[in-house]
């Protein structure tokens, strides 16, 4: 029960030690009253307030036929979701799958995050985690089967009660019917159904009869995100909990030599100041006290080998590296010969910087460590790994560690850390604290804390024949691997390069007869990992900008040039045509404006964007983005549109504004003012069009990101006649 203990402890600490005499009681009263009324106050349910409601329900009689659903005598259907809700809508789309087969009354459906247990492992990845835009496609069978099994048992229970054949009964909207008079609700059947054995085999519905799947059902988690009730990791509060802020190394790999806490330790609220592997932890009664004392520490660091690190020098090294052949990733025909015979050829070097995930909720983790147990509350994308890493530090077996997944205030991959950095350090701090403790990273800590999207360079050479047909392509990618040296090196599948470094180039879809793709792995001591759309976040920029450059070389329209090279790729063509048509590709734009197009395949889905851009007085403004998405069979088109919009904005933010740079080993950016995110006044009009088909379902959280940067960069070319080869886009660097 994620919520029970938390709520209970909240309730038992009315204003403890604060002198407050209203807030906490009032808040709990609100929770209580809302939960007790089931949200009927305002005519719709409040599923996520379920923290308390579900704890109450668990005490009442409930039917739990499998790990994914619990039905109460109160008719409430709670879907236990094994993927983390970080904005992508899994607390709605996965319950939809289950509720569809269960024939549940959707207004009674709620959700609950799954505890850590092998039965909640990702069916494809073998561990409990959220990533790779995989939650819906991997949960499709799992959740439908679970719903169908529960329905079969409820129907069987009703049939038994009426002494009729189960096949003569039907289920609809949370009840079983027989003939025109007999009706038993699921809540009424809970007791009888719980005595039955789950069926070995169930029949899934014919998609033609779907009532929920395929519909733009509103998200179940919206209400509690509009009144402050949704509990994110940073909101968790336990009885007697302390708060810690850590003085962290200013340079990657720096080691603490000594610290002077003479000022800090006498500051108000400070309980303990202690060295931990992550740095020096200041443990205090409240965040502000901990932060003020942390800032008052004087720490001497052994700066280590990264003290002279500079990204400018690193990119120069990458450029040199790209001049020599790398590990072969793909070789079709003879690119060298084709390029030497080309009527016209062009070379371009594309560069993309380190990026921070920059979730709105900075990293944090709450740990309650006892002699023989450990409880962790955090917004995790990596439950299996985080629990195991926490257990190791706690010196406890895995099963003595409970990890409670809260809402995630954004994830984007950062909360799936191979070393569980933000969890492990919190367990270390808890050991020292001797009390439950919440570690909070300041925004600056979060940004400087590493695990970035790696910086990449792609050097591409291409050529066309005298008729303008593309005949040769050679690309060399240089950058760090996100896999090497992690427990996920196995994902490299025995290859001598990291597939995540070249994904999106290695599957170049264009009909170019001679293609060579090579990879150089750079060794840099900056911690890197997956960021929303991973390798595609930089490869799509390079590939789609270069294809535009080839189109210019061939003196062809960039859309038509792509079309000709994608004639045998119907799904690429589908999104490309849809985006071009909806954008009105051939319609003229006012002076000073231009369009750019890009198409890409990632995470099982095809995506194309057309961007409309103006350049005025050296300032780029994106006015409109038309997005076409083909993710095969889909579950919730409302969520698909939201993810596509969000993906386009995420990609546009990176394209226009974002770059992490290092000088003398120190990160130059600190907060939103130096690492900007697109804001309301900069946000274009975004349109999303979904391709309707029956293809295998693909992902949706990430596929909307990759096309944004190249579509915008190509539009800038359309306006200015200058090529963008480095992100973020700077007109002064255009060539």
């Amino acid at each position, binding site marked *: 029960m994620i919520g029970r203990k938390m709520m209970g402890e*909240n309730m038992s600490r009315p204003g403890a030690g*604060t*002198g*407050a*005499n*209203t*807030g*906490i009681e009032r*808040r709990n009263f*609100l929770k209580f009253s809302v939960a007790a009324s089931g949200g009927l106050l*305002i005519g719709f349910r409040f599923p996520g307030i379920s923290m308390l409601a579900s704890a109450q329900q668990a005490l009442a009689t409930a039917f739990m036929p499998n790990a994914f659903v619990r039905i109460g005598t109160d008719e409430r259907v709670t879907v236990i979701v094994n993927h983390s*809700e970080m*904005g*992508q809508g899994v607390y709605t789309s996965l319950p939809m799958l289950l509720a569809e087969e269960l024939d549940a009354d959707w207004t009674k459906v709620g959700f609950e995050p799954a505890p850590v247990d092998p039965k909640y492992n990702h069916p494809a990845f073998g561990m409990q985690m959220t990533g790779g835009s995989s939650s819906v496609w991997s949960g499709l069978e799992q959740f439908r089967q679970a719903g169908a099994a529960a329905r079969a048992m409820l129907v069987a229970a009703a049939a038994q009660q009426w002494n009729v054949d189960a096949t003569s009964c039907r289920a609809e909207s949370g009840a079983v019917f027989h003939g025109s008079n007999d009706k038993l609700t699921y809540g009424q059947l809970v007791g009888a159904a719980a005595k039955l054995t789950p069926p070995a085999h169930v029949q899934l519905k014919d998609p033609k009869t779907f009532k929920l799947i395929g519909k733009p059902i*509103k998200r179940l*988690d*919206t209400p509690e*995100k*509009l*009144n*402050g*009730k949704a*509990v*994110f990791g940073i*909101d968790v*509060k336990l009885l007697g909990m302390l708060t810690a802020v850590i003085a962290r190394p200013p340079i990657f790999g720096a080691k603490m030599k000594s610290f002077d806490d003479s000022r800090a330790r006498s500051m108000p609220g400070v309980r303990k100041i202690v060295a931990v592997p992550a740095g020096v932890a200041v443990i205090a009664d*409240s*965040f*502000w006290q901990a932060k003020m004392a942390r800032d008052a520490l004087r720490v001497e660091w052994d700066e280590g080998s990264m003290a002279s690190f500079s990204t400018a020098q690193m990119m120069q090294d990458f450029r040199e590296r790209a001049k020599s052949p790398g590990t072969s990733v793909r070789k079709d025909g003879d690119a060298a010969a084709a390029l030497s015979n080309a009527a016209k050829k062009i070379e371009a070097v594309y560069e993309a910087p380190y990026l921070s995930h*920059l*979730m*709105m*909720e*900075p990293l944090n983790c709450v740990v309650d460590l006892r002699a023989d147990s450990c409880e962790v509350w955090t917004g995790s994308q990596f439950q299996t790994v985080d629990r195991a890493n926490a257990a190791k530090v706690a010196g406890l077996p895995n099963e003595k560690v409970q990890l409670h997944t809260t*809402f*995630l*205030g*954004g*994830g*984007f991959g950062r909360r799936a850390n191979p070393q569980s950095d933000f969890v492990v350090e919190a367990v270390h701090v808890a050991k020292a604290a001797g009390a439950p403790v919440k570690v*909070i990273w*300041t*925004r600056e800590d979060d940004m400087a804390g590493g695990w970035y999207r790696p910086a990449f360079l792609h050097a591409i050479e291409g050529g066309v024949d005298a008729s303008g047909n593309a005949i040769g392509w050679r690309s060399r990618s240089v950058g760090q691997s996100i896999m090497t040296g992690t427990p996920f090196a196995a994902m490299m599948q025995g290859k001598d390069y990291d597939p995540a470094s070249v994904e999106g180039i290695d599957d170049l879809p264009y009909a170019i007869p001679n293609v060579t793709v090579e990879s150089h792995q750079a060794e840099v001591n900056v911690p890197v990992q997956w960021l929303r759309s991973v390798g595609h976040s930089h490869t799509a920029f390079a590939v789609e900008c270069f294809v535009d450059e080839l189109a210019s070389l061939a003196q062809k329209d960039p859309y038509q040039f792509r079309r000709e090279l994608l004639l045998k790729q119907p799904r690429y063509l589908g999104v490309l045509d849809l985006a071009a048509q909806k954008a009105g590709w051939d319609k003229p734009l006012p002076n000073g404006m231009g369009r750019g197009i890009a198409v890409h395949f990632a995470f099982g889905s095809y995506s194309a964007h057309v961007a409309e851009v103006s350049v005025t007085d050296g300032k780029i403004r994106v006015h409109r983005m038309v997005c076409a998405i083909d993710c095969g069979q889909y579950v919730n088109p*409302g969520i698909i549109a*939201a993810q596509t*919009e*969000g*993906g386009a*904005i*995420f990609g546009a933010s990176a394209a226009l504004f974002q770059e992490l740079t290092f000088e003398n080993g120190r990160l130059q950016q600190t*907060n*939103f*003012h130096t690492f900007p*995110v*697109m*804001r*309301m*006044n900069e*946000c274009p*009009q975004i349109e999303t069009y979904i391709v309707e088909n029956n293809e295998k379902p693909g992902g949706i959280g990430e596929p909307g990101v990759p096309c944004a940067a190249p579509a915008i960069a190509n539009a800038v070319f359309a306006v200015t006649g200058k090529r963008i080869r480095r992100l973020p886009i700077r007109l002064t660097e255009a060539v």
Partner: protein
Amino acid sequence: MLGFSVNGKRVDLDVDPSTPLLWVIREHLGLTGTKYGCGMAQCGACTVHINGEAVRSCVAPASRASGKAVTTIEGLSPDLSNPLQRAWLEEDVPQCGYCQSGQLMSAAVLLREKPSPTDDDIDEAMTGNICRCGTYPRIRRAIHRAAEMVAKGGAQ
């Protein structure tokens, strides 16, 4: 002692008055709907009202609230009946949801000042609130929708 009202209720607190109001609201009053995002008035996640004015509580010392009326997201309406909350539901605005308290509190001041805001008004009022998930197009639509609800009446 520092005294002010929060969502209509009087509170008296024994806190350092230089503590940012954000942390007093979150930690001392237990009202965690108001969020920490940047600590330097860059992102707007911490937006609350002091006497009806939108304030970035992460940089406002608690003393600024002394004797005044503070409204947080928890006080926007007791039951999601505020037109903005209803419009946010209709447009299915939130994704991760972390920034939405601040977005709503900024939008509430906008709608009070400009009951029929233009897109430019929305840009001006909402540009201080960052959403990393990219819900801006829906926030814009929801603000227009809320304005229509208010104009038609019956929304209050």
